[in-house]
Each structure stands twice: as C-alpha cells, then as structure tokens.
C-alpha cells in the first residue's frame, strides 16, 4: 500500500517537474517583451474599461499612451486631470490641465414644449424608432426619449425624466466618457466644458429646419434667426443650417444671448437668479 503511494507521488512530481521545465524554456523562447511603463500606466488608470477614451479598455489605452509618449489628444474622461497628472511622470513629461467636461442634452422638446402628435408603442429603442419615423412630436431632430443613452451609461449618470420625457444628466456622476453621445442616433448629446460652478450656456436644440416648420413641432426650437449671433461680442455663436451653435471654448457665460433668444432655445444652467429680470425664468427643466 505504502509503496503504491510512493510510486504515485514520484510519478506525479516527476511529470510536474518535467512540465515545469518545458514551460520554463517555452516561456523563455516566446517571451513577449513589453514596455514596463504600460503596466505602470495601466495601474494608474481607473480600470473602468468604459471606452470613453476611444480605446478598447484601460489596458489598450495605456498601450496607446506609452506608444505616443505624450498626452496630446489622449484623455481619460473618468480619471480626469488627477489621473493624467499621475501618468505624466511615468512618461517623463508634465501634464497640462484640462477643463472638466460633461454631457449636455441639446433638446428641450418636453411633453409641454413639443406635444405628442402620435403615439409610439413599438420596441423601446431610439435607434429603431429613429429608423421608423420622425418621432412622437413630429420633430425629426428631437429626442425620442426611449433611453438608448440611459442604457449606454456605465456610471448611472443619466435618466429619463418622466415628467418631460427627456434625459437628465447628473452633474456629479457624469464623467464625460461620451458613451451616450455614440448611443444617441440623433446626435443630440454633446460633450461640453463643465465650467465654474457647473454654469453652462448652450443652444438646447439641434433642429436644422427653417423657422416655421421647426416652431410648428416645438415651442422652444431654434429658428436660426441669428439674434444671438449679433448680440454676442465674443464671436462664440455661429449659425449653420438654421441652427445656432455656441462654441464653449469662446463663450464667456455673459448670458446676453439667453435674453435675446425669442424662442427660449438657449438655456442657462446653475446661474443665480437674475435681479432685474426675475420673471424670465426658463420654462425648461433647470435641473438638467
């Protein structure tokens, strides 16, 4: 009995030793020489694998960073400046500060602003509905409210407000990874600078129709009148295809355009209420 045990032990351990030896030589022969910086960078990255940087996961992003040797055009939206600051010494460079960003929903076609004309009861996905028809309000550019952006968000930072039927982005949770931007079939969501105290001014409409048809479907549509462009002293506003766009790099948050907009398509967020024109509160969801 004992002898059987001993033989077994000897046999198994010798097989083990032999395999270890083979594996050792194979590992030597086929060794992948990898830059140790990649591991270092990958350790610093948050590991959320959200793909917000445009690469397939954090590891892949780390490889791209090490390969590039600098941080130009590379950004980890989740980690933000702190992570980039930590990565910079690994590469032997100095990180430049980037302004924090956030996803912004550029549509105010709530149930009250853009009333439903038809009812949709098909599959609950914006991509399909977008292929099928123009939308319940009739606006061919507006939010369909079926929540593809909500499903795409890995940080639970976006939800559909039942009262308005529009997505709401959380100031705290959103990391500006851009997943919702890709998920939205109508390209309504945009990544914009977060600014001080989360103060933002943007055109909350992407309707490129002419004034009359745009206004027919939605009260707060941008009609491309150009008043905001004239009033802006910083050349931050441009009009293309009947639609105004505010360049967030140039905008100084002076709020002149907000007053000027005849359809309330330009929205200001998180500003303290105005003294003289307290009545001109926007009708749209201020929590956005």
């Amino acid at each position: 009995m004992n002898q059987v045990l001993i033989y077994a032990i000897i046999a198994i351990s010798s097989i083990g030793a032999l395999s270890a030896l083979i594996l050792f030589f194979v590992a030597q022969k086929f060794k992948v020489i990898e830059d140790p910086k990649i591991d270092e960078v990958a350790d610093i990255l948050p590991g959320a694998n959200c793909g917000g940087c445009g690469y397939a996961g954090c590891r892949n992003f780390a490889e791209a960073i090490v390969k590039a040797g600098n941080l130009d055009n590379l950004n980890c939206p989740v980690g933000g400046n702190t992570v980039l600051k930590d990565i910079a010494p690994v590469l032997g460079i100095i990180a430049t500060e980037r302004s924090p960003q956030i996803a912004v929903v550029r549509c105010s076609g709530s149930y009250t602003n853009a009333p439903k004309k038809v009812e949709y009861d098909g599959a609950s996905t914006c991509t399909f509905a977008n292929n099928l028809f123009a939308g319940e309000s009739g606006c061919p550019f507006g939010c369909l409210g079926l929540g593809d952006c909500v499903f795409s968000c890995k940080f639970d930072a976006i939800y559909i407000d039942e009262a308005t039927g529009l997505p709401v982005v959380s100031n705290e949770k959103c990391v500006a990874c851009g997943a919702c931007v890709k998920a939205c079939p109508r390209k309504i969501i945009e990544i914009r600078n977060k600014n001080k105290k989360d103060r933002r001014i943007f055109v909350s409409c992407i309707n490129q129709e002419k004034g009359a048809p745009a206004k027919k479907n939605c009260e707060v549509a941008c009609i491309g009148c150009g008043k905001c462009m004239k009033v802006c002293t910083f050349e931050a506003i441009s009009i293309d295809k009947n639609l105004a766009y505010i360049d967030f790099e140039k905008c100084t948050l002076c709020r002149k355009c907000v007053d000027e907009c005849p359809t309330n398509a330009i929205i200001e967020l998180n500003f303290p209420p105005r003294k003289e024109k307290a009545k001109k509160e926007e009708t749209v969801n201020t929590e956005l």
Partner: protein
Amino acid sequence: MKTFKIGGVHPEENKLTSDKAIEFLAISQKICIPVTQHLGTPSTLVVEKGESIKTGQLIAKGDAFICANVHSSVSGKISKIDTAIDTSGYKKTSVFIDVEGDIWEETIDRTNTINKDILLSKEEIIAKIKDMGIVGLGGATFPTHVKMMVPNGKKAEFLLINGVECEPYLTSDHRLMLEKGEEILVGISILKKALGVEKAIIGIENNKSDAITYLTKLALNFTGIEVHALKIKYPQGAEKQLIKALLNREVPSGKLPIEVGCVVSNIGTAFAVYEAIQKNKPLFERVVSITGKSLKNPSNFMVRIGTPVIELIEKAGGLPDDSGKVNSGGPMMGKALNSLDVPIVKGTSGILIMTRKESKRPEILNCIRCGKCITVCPMGLEPYLLAQLAENGNFETSEKEKIMDCMECGSCQFTCPSSRPLLDYVRLGKNKVGLIIRNRANN
C-alpha cells in the same frame, strides 16, 4: 392546391371591399408629389417653381441604374418645391401643384378600347417602361425596367404574376383583376415579350374565386398564360414564397428570383405596363383600397398620385371616432402614418383605419421559448434569436444567422404569444447589418 411549404400564418382576411367597384376619386385641389417614390437612387427634378404642367408630364427624372421617373398626376401650376413629410414623418423633397383643370399630355390615349397588338420590340418596351416611371406596385416599388433587364448569363424561363394579395383587408389587385382583366392579360403579354419568356403564370389565392374563374376564361385567348389557384396562406404574395408555391423552386439565400429563372411582377404593375405601352400613359394614378372595420363606406378608389390621405378618408365616410391608427398598407406589413396629409404614392396599395382596440399592442411579456415564431417564419429563420441578437447589439452573429433573408412579413410577431416586438428588433438588426455590409463593400 399549391402553396409554399415552410411557415406562414392565417390572419383574419377581412376583405371588406372585395365587392366594391373601383371609383374614380375627384381630383384633389392640393396635390403634393414626392420626387422619389421608388426603391433606389433618388430622382432629380426637371421642373421649376411657377412652371405650368400637364397631367402626365415628367417632373423628376431617374438617371441612375435603379431609379424611376416621376410624372405629374394633375395639370396646373407648380406653386412650390419644398419638403413635405412622407409616411415616416421625415421630410422629403416634393412638388406642390395648384390644380387647374385636367389637361392631359396629347400623347396619352384616353379611350377605353383595348389594344391587343404589341408593336414594339423587346428593347423598345423596356425603354418605354422606364420612361413611363413604372415601379412594382405590390408595395416594394422596385423599378420594373430594371427587373426586365435579365443579367448576362442568366435566363428567364417564367414570368410569375402575383395576384395573391395575401395581405388582409386590401382588395386593390382583386378589383383590378375583375374590372381590367383583359388589359392585365395584354400587360402580361407585353412583359413576356420584354423578357423573352414563353410562359407566364398568374398565382391567385383561393379566396378570390371570381377572379380565378374570370381570368382563366380570358387567358384562353392568350398564348402561354396560365392561372393557378393557391391555398390561402400569408405571406404567399412574397416573391420567394410565390415561386416556391407555383414552381416548387427555391431562391438561394441572398439571391434574386432570376437565379431560378423567374421574374415576379404584380397585377397592378401588369396593368400599369399595359397603360404605359398601349396607351402612352405614365404611372400617375393607382387603385387604393380604403378600408377598416369602423369606416362607414370602405371603397376602392382610382387615385391620382399625390392626393392627401385625408381626402380618401373623407370620401369613404370620414375618420371614425374610435380610430386608433391609420396604416398605409395592410395590417401585417403596412406602416402607421403620423399625419393624414401624407400623399398617396406609387407604393400605397391601401389605407387601413384600425380601431383603437385593434391598434393597441398587447403588453410585452417574456419569451417562453415556445418556438412558434420559428414554425411560422416563411424564410426558415429563428426570429426570437435574431431579435435578441439585435437587442444586444451582436450584429456579426445576426449576419451569420441570415438576418438579411428576413422580408419583414411580421408572421413571427403576429403569432408570438408573449407579443414580443420581434420584427421591430429584426428590422433594427437588418438596418445595422445592412450598414456593415455596405461599409465592407466600400472598403
């Protein structure tokens, strides 16, 4: 009696208008003709604002290979060229015409005499079909002249004529067969000549026995035209199912009917071809069934292209109070309209007004893996799987599972006991896979 083997369903027929003769609808005052009404490359406009035009005058030209001409359906002045919503609610370029009288192009023969002699040659027929803007009137609106040009190395043996009209409610083809039987048969003879085939077979479902008897009798005077009765089953009117039912041939996946020596055309198309070739009349009017259970006066109308849907509804007794949905097309493959100002186009075979109760989709429950969708799928696909793959965004596997073979007949969704939106997701998948395939072809 013949039918196709795999799958199929039996929705309630509800052919309310099968004994209503085709009436001419008075010309609308507000005509809006979309510039592109076919499947393929968009046509280019050839008229300008303010121009006076006659009925039957060319307004948009199809230059590309798969493209069709569009003609004016009324005479008058072009008031504007602008965008107007189509069946989907999206805006498409359209021509708005202020109607003045009804002056036709002089070349059009307006008499009712039936002209049986085919004087044109094969090439001339195809060129004329192209000029007259004929597209498949079964609903797909594929340009007919393209179908008639058999690719090199292929040979057409049979011309199959689709008189099945398997879609519930719709009766436009049925009425056309009864009232314009002889013209249709001449049209078929023209198509036969254009294709160079000896034999044409008309397939008609057995619920239209009057049409079967009538056309069989008439066909005795024509050479090489047969009429076959088919068992009632949806979707028999689909090209591949019709070929299977009539000839027991199977079109390989991703291929066209010409692969098995067939060309399939619709009854309405055959009539349009007759009018185009023998009467010089471009395709600017068609038969539209307007129907629905609560509609006061369901009818079949001969309608000029560009007439707003609301005018048909008013003529048929007005929109009932309990209307839930207005469909362009039948209940199975039709599309819900989101405005009643949408114009009738070449592909509109019917307008169906569904009651609120009928149009409400039941609550979506979980898939219970009963496999009914697989049993009824006429293409032998697995709809539950395709829908799930599309829902999860797995489009590579969808392609391997032959999602592109789906013809969107809706049998799966019709039969699903959990009323899952199977077709919705399959359509989503088809759209994405189609994009992937196109991208691959471009690179």
